[in-house]
């Protein structure tokens, strides 16, 4: 069964549409990467999928549920997690509080969920009481992903998770993404410089000008010369 099926999405801001009919599918257990140049509509697609922007046309299905018009708080409960590209943590709150807010909609004791996140990101375990605003970029990204994982999502959407990170930190984040995926969580990643991301992806999509350009297996896109030249920096 497809975890996420978006078809023919048209969306954008009041007087300017950015997506002109984008379709994306994520199967259960897959890692899918969306690449494309600046302004291709990648972040807009993420926001539309997550209900932060209304879809003017098209539909979004999550599993076998139609979620096209659902607000974020409903999607979160359904197992849909989203890590925005920027401002993806609460800087004046502690690590523990950030994670706690990830599980905000739950009514249960969160301690088992904390443990699971700290197993994935051992570096965070010792810094539970640190204000996230005082942490490094890599650590913040871990907090952001950890926060999204608190709900045990079935789909994790990451908007440029390694942008502005040093290469060794980026590699670490990708390792963690693999580890997350191994737990059966589907992952949808948006990346601008996306070689690394495509390498670990099952499939990939290329967006340009608010439309689908190419799609295929991750390695296939990586080896395609046109895509390499146009979108992967040669």
């Amino acid at each position, binding site marked *: 069964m497809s975890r996420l099926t978006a078809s023919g999405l048209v969306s954008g801001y009041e007087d300017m549409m950015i997506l002109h009919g984008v379709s994306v599918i994520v199967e259960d257990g897959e890692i899918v990467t969306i690449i494309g140049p600046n302004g291709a509509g990648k972040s807009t697609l993420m926001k539309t999928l997550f209900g*932060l922007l209304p879809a003017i046309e098209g539909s979004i299905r999550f599993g076998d549920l139609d979620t096209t018009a659902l607000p974020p708080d409903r999607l*979160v409960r359904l197992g849909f997690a*989203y890590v925005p590209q920027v401002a993806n943590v*609460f800087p004046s709150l502690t690590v523990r509080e950030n994670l706690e*807010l990830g599980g*905000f909609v739950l009514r249960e004791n969160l301690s088992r969920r904390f443990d699971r996140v700290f197993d994935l990101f051992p570096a965070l375990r010792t810094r539970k009481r640190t204000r996230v605003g005082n942490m490094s970029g890599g650590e913040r990204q871990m907090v952001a992903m950890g926060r999204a994982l608190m709900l045990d999502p079935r789909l994790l959407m990451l908007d440029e998770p390694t942008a502005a990170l040093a290469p060794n930190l980026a590699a670490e984040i990708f390792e963690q993404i693999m580890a997350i995926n191994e737990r059966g969580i589907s992952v949808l990643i948006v990346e601008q410089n996306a070689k690394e991301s495509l390498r670990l992806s099952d499939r990939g999509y290329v967006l340009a000008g608010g439309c689908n350009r190419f799609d295929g297996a991750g390695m296939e896109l990586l080896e395609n010369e046109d895509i390499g030249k146009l979108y992967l920096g040669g």
Partner: protein
Amino acid sequence: MDVLSRIPQLLTYGLISGCILSLGGIGVSLTYSILGFSNFAHGDFMALGAYIALALLPAIAWLGIPAASLGPLSFGWDWILAVLLAAMLSSACVVLLDRLLFRQLRSAHRITLMISTVGVALALRNLIQFIWGPQPQTYASAIQKAIRIERLGIRIKPDQIFIILVALTLATALHLFLRYTKIGKAMRATSDNPSLARVCGIKTERVILWTWIIGASLATVAGALAGIENKFITPELGWQMLLSIFAAVILGGIGNPYGAIVGGLVVGISEEVSTAFISTGYKPAVAFVILILMLLIRPTGLLGRKS
């Protein structure tokens, strides 16, 4: 009496009025951090709460709760009950106002919202005057003997000790609320990063509701305490304190409720101590001078973060 020997007494008065300013400032700061605009009607929320409490006193007497003074205080359980009920009622009024007006303007420009709060300020103050009249009114007229604390060289009334204790209790309660309750954390999260808070499934409207309830309740207590300290209330009660409250909030770092508490104490104390050196006629301008100095030196406030 020479100037310096008056200082301890003025510090005491300043502490008391600072407590009242702090309670008012918390609401302004919370509104700013959650809703993103400066609420110029907050002073009038204080007056509204103080007057609702006044109106409840006869009803409470009718219920058979005695109006006898509590120990050395000038008021009794009836007054305390009246203030608690008034906090709820004025919260309801403010939430209703939000539904009718501010909610319709959620996506409007901040300045449009601020102008609408100026309109609310004026309409509310005059509504109070329409119902209760412009003349000063009192909760209780019991005369209190001040306690002398010779070692510190100050005199303080039991009511004033009560004011300090109430402010201390409420500030602690607010701290515990923000730090440990679910809705408190949701408020801090929303103030930090509203869109991420929504991503986490926090309902912004619920947070806004609580912001108004806390702001209006603390404003009610502040207004009622001002009525105890001044011995009377007038419809202008809150408006007269508004400039001081805003100076306090900016001094502490606008949007930071802890800053509002610190700022309130600093402004309250500065205003009282200033009377040792300048004409009392200019006391209301002291807050303004602090405000301007702060804007020149450190516009983010004492506890403000860099933005």
